[in-house]
Protein backbone atom coordinates (compact mmCIF):
# COMPACT_ATOMS: atom_id res chain seq x y z
CA UNK A 1 0.00 0.00 0.00
CA UNK A 2 2.82 2.41 0.92
CA UNK A 3 4.59 1.58 -2.33
CA UNK A 4 1.33 2.18 -4.24
CA UNK A 5 0.90 5.62 -2.67
CA UNK A 6 4.55 6.43 -3.33
CA UNK A 7 4.17 5.43 -6.99
CA UNK A 8 1.01 7.55 -7.39
CA UNK A 9 2.73 10.53 -5.73
CA UNK A 10 5.83 10.16 -7.89
CA UNK A 11 3.60 9.81 -10.96
CA UNK A 12 1.81 13.09 -10.22
CA UNK A 13 5.15 14.78 -9.51
CA UNK A 14 6.66 13.43 -12.74
CA UNK A 15 3.63 14.70 -14.68
CA UNK A 16 3.79 18.16 -13.09
CA UNK A 17 7.55 18.45 -13.79
CA UNK A 18 7.09 17.21 -17.38
CA UNK A 19 4.36 19.80 -18.00
CA UNK A 20 6.23 22.55 -16.16
CA UNK A 21 9.61 22.14 -17.87
CA UNK A 22 8.56 20.74 -21.25
CA UNK A 23 10.48 17.47 -20.96
CA UNK A 24 9.20 14.06 -22.00
CA UNK A 25 7.59 11.91 -19.34
CA UNK A 26 9.96 8.99 -19.95
CA UNK A 27 13.02 10.79 -18.59
CA UNK A 28 11.17 11.03 -15.25
CA UNK A 29 9.15 7.80 -15.38
CA UNK A 30 12.19 5.54 -15.76
CA UNK A 31 13.96 6.68 -12.54
CA UNK A 32 10.55 6.69 -10.78
CA UNK A 33 10.02 3.06 -11.78
CA UNK A 34 13.57 1.92 -10.94
CA UNK A 35 14.24 3.92 -7.76
CA UNK A 36 10.62 4.10 -6.54
CA UNK A 37 9.15 0.73 -7.51
CA UNK A 38 12.33 -1.33 -7.84
CA UNK A 39 11.86 -2.33 -11.49
CA UNK A 40 14.92 -3.35 -13.51
CA UNK A 41 16.24 -0.77 -15.99
CA UNK A 42 14.88 -2.74 -18.99
CA UNK A 43 11.45 -3.28 -17.41
CA UNK A 44 11.33 0.42 -16.42
CA UNK A 45 12.18 1.59 -19.94
CA UNK A 46 9.57 -0.72 -21.48
CA UNK A 47 6.93 0.19 -18.88
CA UNK A 48 7.60 3.93 -19.18
CA UNK A 49 6.55 3.76 -22.85
CA UNK A 50 3.19 2.34 -21.79
CA UNK A 51 2.93 4.94 -18.98
CA UNK A 52 3.59 7.76 -21.49
CA UNK A 53 0.50 6.90 -23.57
CA UNK A 54 -2.17 8.33 -21.18
CA UNK A 55 -0.08 11.49 -20.60
CA UNK A 56 0.40 12.05 -24.32
CA UNK A 57 -3.25 11.22 -25.08
CA UNK A 58 -4.44 13.78 -22.49
CA UNK A 59 -2.02 16.43 -23.81
CA UNK A 60 -2.86 15.80 -27.47
CA UNK A 61 -6.59 15.84 -26.75
CA UNK A 62 -6.30 19.23 -25.02
CA UNK A 63 -4.08 20.71 -27.75
CA UNK A 64 -6.37 19.37 -30.50
CA UNK A 65 -9.21 21.46 -29.07
CA UNK A 66 -7.08 24.57 -29.68
CA UNK A 67 -6.27 23.44 -33.23
CA UNK A 68 -2.54 23.10 -32.47
CA UNK A 69 -2.01 19.52 -33.69
CA UNK A 70 -0.87 19.02 -37.32
CA UNK A 71 -1.90 15.40 -37.83
CA UNK A 72 -0.12 14.73 -41.13
CA UNK A 73 3.45 15.54 -39.93
CA UNK A 74 2.69 13.85 -36.59
CA UNK A 75 1.69 10.61 -38.31
CA UNK A 76 4.60 10.79 -40.80
CA UNK A 77 7.18 11.38 -38.02
CA UNK A 78 5.60 8.76 -35.77
CA UNK A 79 5.49 6.08 -38.47
CA UNK A 80 9.01 6.92 -39.69
CA UNK A 81 10.34 6.51 -36.13
CA UNK A 82 8.90 3.01 -35.71
CA UNK A 83 11.96 1.42 -37.41
CA UNK A 84 14.22 3.30 -34.98
CA UNK A 85 12.08 2.16 -32.03
CA UNK A 86 12.37 -1.47 -33.15
CA UNK A 87 16.17 -1.11 -33.45
CA UNK A 88 16.28 0.49 -29.99
CA UNK A 89 14.30 -2.37 -28.46
CA UNK A 90 16.66 -4.95 -30.00
CA UNK A 91 19.74 -3.07 -28.71
CA UNK A 92 18.21 -2.61 -25.22
CA UNK A 93 17.36 -6.33 -25.06
CA UNK A 94 20.94 -7.26 -25.93
CA UNK A 95 22.75 -4.92 -23.51
CA UNK A 96 23.66 -5.83 -19.93
CA UNK A 97 21.51 -4.12 -17.28
CA UNK A 98 24.45 -2.06 -15.90
CA UNK A 99 25.32 -0.66 -19.34
CA UNK A 100 21.69 0.24 -20.02
CA UNK A 101 21.53 2.03 -16.66
CA UNK A 102 24.69 4.04 -17.41
CA UNK A 103 23.48 4.99 -20.88
CA UNK A 104 20.22 6.24 -19.38
CA UNK A 105 22.21 8.20 -16.76
CA UNK A 106 24.17 9.86 -19.59
CA UNK A 107 20.89 10.70 -21.37
CA UNK A 108 19.57 12.34 -18.18
CA UNK A 109 22.68 14.53 -17.98
CA UNK A 110 22.17 15.59 -21.63
CA UNK A 111 18.52 16.48 -20.92
CA UNK A 112 19.62 18.38 -17.76
CA UNK A 113 22.08 20.39 -19.89
CA UNK A 114 19.30 21.10 -22.41
CA UNK A 115 16.94 22.36 -19.66
CA UNK A 116 19.72 24.53 -18.17
CA UNK A 117 20.65 25.88 -21.63
CA UNK A 118 17.03 26.84 -22.38
CA UNK A 119 16.73 28.53 -18.95
CA UNK A 120 19.93 30.53 -19.58
CA UNK A 121 18.79 31.65 -23.02
CA UNK A 122 15.46 32.76 -21.60
CA UNK A 123 17.59 34.80 -19.20
Amino acid at each position, binding site marked *: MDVTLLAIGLGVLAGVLAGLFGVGGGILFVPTLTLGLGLTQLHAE*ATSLLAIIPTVAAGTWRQRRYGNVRWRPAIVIGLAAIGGVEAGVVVAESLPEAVLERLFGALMIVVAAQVAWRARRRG
Partner: protein
Amino acid sequence: MATSLAAIGIIALAGTVSYGFHGELKPGAAALVGLPAAAGAIAGTALQQRLAGRTLSLLFAVMLAGVGIKLLV
Protein backbone atom coordinates in the same frame (compact mmCIF):
# COMPACT_ATOMS: atom_id res chain seq x y z
CA MET B 1 5.08 21.08 -29.58
CA ALA B 2 1.50 19.76 -29.86
CA THR B 3 2.36 17.95 -33.08
CA SER B 4 5.47 16.35 -31.54
CA LEU B 5 3.28 15.18 -28.65
CA ALA B 6 1.05 13.29 -31.12
CA ALA B 7 4.14 11.80 -32.83
CA ILE B 8 5.51 10.69 -29.43
CA GLY B 9 2.20 8.90 -28.84
CA ILE B 10 2.70 6.80 -31.99
CA ILE B 11 6.34 6.08 -31.05
CA ALA B 12 5.36 5.10 -27.48
CA LEU B 13 2.64 2.82 -28.84
CA ALA B 14 5.11 1.11 -31.21
CA GLY B 15 7.64 0.66 -28.39
CA THR B 16 4.97 -0.67 -26.05
CA VAL B 17 3.84 -3.28 -28.59
CA SER B 18 7.43 -4.31 -29.30
CA TYR B 19 8.43 -4.61 -25.61
CA GLY B 20 5.11 -6.37 -24.98
CA PHE B 21 6.11 -9.11 -27.43
CA HIS B 22 9.39 -9.46 -25.48
CA GLY B 23 7.42 -9.76 -22.21
CA GLU B 24 9.13 -6.77 -20.59
CA LEU B 25 6.04 -4.69 -19.70
CA LYS B 26 4.62 -4.15 -16.19
CA PRO B 27 1.10 -2.80 -16.93
CA GLY B 28 0.23 -2.33 -13.23
CA ALA B 29 3.29 -0.14 -12.63
CA ALA B 30 2.58 1.79 -15.86
CA ALA B 31 -0.98 2.55 -14.72
CA LEU B 32 0.19 3.51 -11.19
CA VAL B 33 2.64 6.07 -12.56
CA GLY B 34 1.14 6.99 -15.94
CA LEU B 35 -2.46 7.82 -14.97
CA PRO B 36 -1.57 10.19 -12.08
CA ALA B 37 1.11 11.69 -14.34
CA ALA B 38 -1.50 12.53 -16.98
CA ALA B 39 -3.37 14.63 -14.39
CA GLY B 40 -0.06 16.06 -13.15
CA ALA B 41 0.99 17.07 -16.66
CA ILE B 42 -2.21 19.09 -17.11
CA ALA B 43 -1.54 20.85 -13.78
CA GLY B 44 2.13 21.36 -14.72
CA THR B 45 1.22 22.94 -18.05
CA ALA B 46 -1.12 25.38 -16.26
CA LEU B 47 1.55 26.14 -13.62
CA GLN B 48 4.12 26.81 -16.37
CA GLN B 49 2.41 30.12 -17.16
CA ARG B 50 3.07 31.39 -13.62
CA LEU B 51 6.08 29.53 -12.23
CA ALA B 52 8.66 28.46 -14.79
CA GLY B 53 11.34 30.91 -13.78
CA ARG B 54 15.03 30.60 -14.53
CA THR B 55 16.05 29.52 -11.03
CA LEU B 56 13.37 26.80 -10.93
CA SER B 57 14.51 25.43 -14.31
CA LEU B 58 18.15 25.42 -13.19
CA LEU B 59 17.20 23.58 -9.98
CA PHE B 60 15.33 21.00 -12.05
CA ALA B 61 18.37 20.60 -14.32
CA VAL B 62 20.56 20.01 -11.24
CA MET B 63 18.09 17.36 -9.97
CA LEU B 64 18.09 15.58 -13.36
CA ALA B 65 21.89 15.70 -13.54
CA GLY B 66 22.10 14.37 -9.96
CA VAL B 67 19.98 11.30 -10.78
CA GLY B 68 21.90 10.88 -14.05
CA ILE B 69 25.25 10.88 -12.20
CA LYS B 70 23.84 8.39 -9.65
CA LEU B 71 22.98 6.03 -12.53
CA LEU B 72 26.34 6.60 -14.23
CA VAL B 73 28.64 5.81 -11.31
